[in-house]
């Protein structure tokens, strides 16, 4: 049986029903352990002091914010190509989660910025590109909200998501060109040890795993809700016509 069979709503529901609680619990475990570890069992950074600990929320949320959009892009493509309703609904479900992640990254970043850079907000390229990402999320959600016919909405938002992704990359580049910032470079690379010491590093990894799992759990939950809503809608229409 092919992987696509799970794209059938009923199959998807029955398949994810048992998975959801597992993922949720795993997410909570990772989050709690990672954050507690990070907050209470790591030494204070010699430069940044205790403020460094916000790192354990800031980075994972920032990463998830980006990956959420990526997941939406993939789901949109699947919908456009294979017309699987679930993938469209999954994209719809992921957007608000992505928005929240972006907001967390922005807010924690701003809070972090106060002690570090002495300002809540600086037009630093990465901060800015996150702001732009936030705008893209807003537009995407607004378009979903504006169109009543679900299939039309799915199609249009997919088109928007694809075009938007291209422009998001462009903007990222443009913003970097526009202003070289004070934000540190990516440390998610293989040579991570160079920027961040292992002691800070391992709890961060756990926290990131926690955020990933949390994201999956939330998207599953919301997708299931969307599917139920569609089902209700379908039943109502049929009832009206019967």
């Amino acid at each position, binding site marked *: 049986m092919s992987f696509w069979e799970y794209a*059938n*709503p*009923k199959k998807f529901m029955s398949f994810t029903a048992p998975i959801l609680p597992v993922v949720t619990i795993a997410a909570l475990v990772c989050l709690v352990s990672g954050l507690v570890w990070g907050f209470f069992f790591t030494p204070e950074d010699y430069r940044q002091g205790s403020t460094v600990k916000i790192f354990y929320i800031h980075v994972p949320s920032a990463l998830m914010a980006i990956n959420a959009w990526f997941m939406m892009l993939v789901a949109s493509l699947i919908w456009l190509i294979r017309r699987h*309703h679930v993938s469209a609904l999954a994209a719809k479900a992921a957007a608000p989660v992505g928005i929240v992640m972006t907001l967390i990254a922005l807010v924690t970043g701003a809070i972090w910025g106060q002690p570090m850079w002495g300002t809540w907000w600086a037009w630093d390229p990465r901060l800015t590109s996150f702001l732009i990402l936030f705008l893209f999320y807003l537009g995407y959600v607004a378009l979903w909200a504006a169109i009543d*016919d*679900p*299939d039309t909405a799915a199609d249009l938002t997919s088109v928007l998501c694809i075009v938007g992704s291209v422009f998001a990359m462009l903007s990222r580049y443009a913003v970097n060109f526009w202003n070289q910032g004070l934000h540190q470079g990516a440390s998610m690379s293989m040579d991570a040890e160079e920027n961040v010491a292992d002691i800070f590093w391992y709890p961060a990894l756990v926290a990131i795993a926690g955020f990933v799992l949390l994201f999956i759990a939330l998207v599953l939950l919301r997708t299931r809700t969307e*599917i139920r809503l*569609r*089902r209700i*809608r*379908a*039943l109502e*229409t*049929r009832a009206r*016509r*019967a």
Partner: protein
Amino acid sequence: MELVVTDLACARGGVPLIEGVNFRLKEGEALVLRGANGIGKTTLLRTLAGLQPPLAGMIECTEDQSAYASHADGIKAQLTVRENLEFWASVHGTSVEASVFEAFDLVDLRERFAGTLSAGQKRRLGLARLGVIGRKILFLDEPTVSLDRFSVKLFADFLKEQHLAMGGIAVIATHIDLGLEAPELDLEPFRAAYDAGGSSDEAFL
């Protein structure tokens, strides 16, 4: 040239409306669609015209020969009657003969801005478009709305003499009698069952 429709089913807003429609029209033949309000005439015509995909079934008709005309006939208030027609003509790579203005009694409205026309005059202009674009297969949705008897007659004559007689095909949805002897198709028997397949929600039931 022929229009062949087999087992056609179509939906609106994700709701299947009519199914199992079959007919075949040869050159010079017309078909009049009948049915209560809301049964799906407009939907069927839009499907035939290729504006929306059919749920099921086949529509065989020569490419680029079909034209669709509905209540909204794309008239620009800021253009004169002539300019409106000339635009559609040049889009279809044809030209506007004077005969069209006579056929639809638009001669002395030729230079009037379309926005200043009365309901029926606007309608006549919308129909005159059909005489201009030179398409052979017409899908007409209530073409005679708000036309007076005289204009209805004008239109019927145009259909008979300048379209069907020249090997054209026409599918017309209307509630009134056009006075052209064409077979009628009542859509009532083709009403889709309430649990008919193909609805966009189907996967969720």
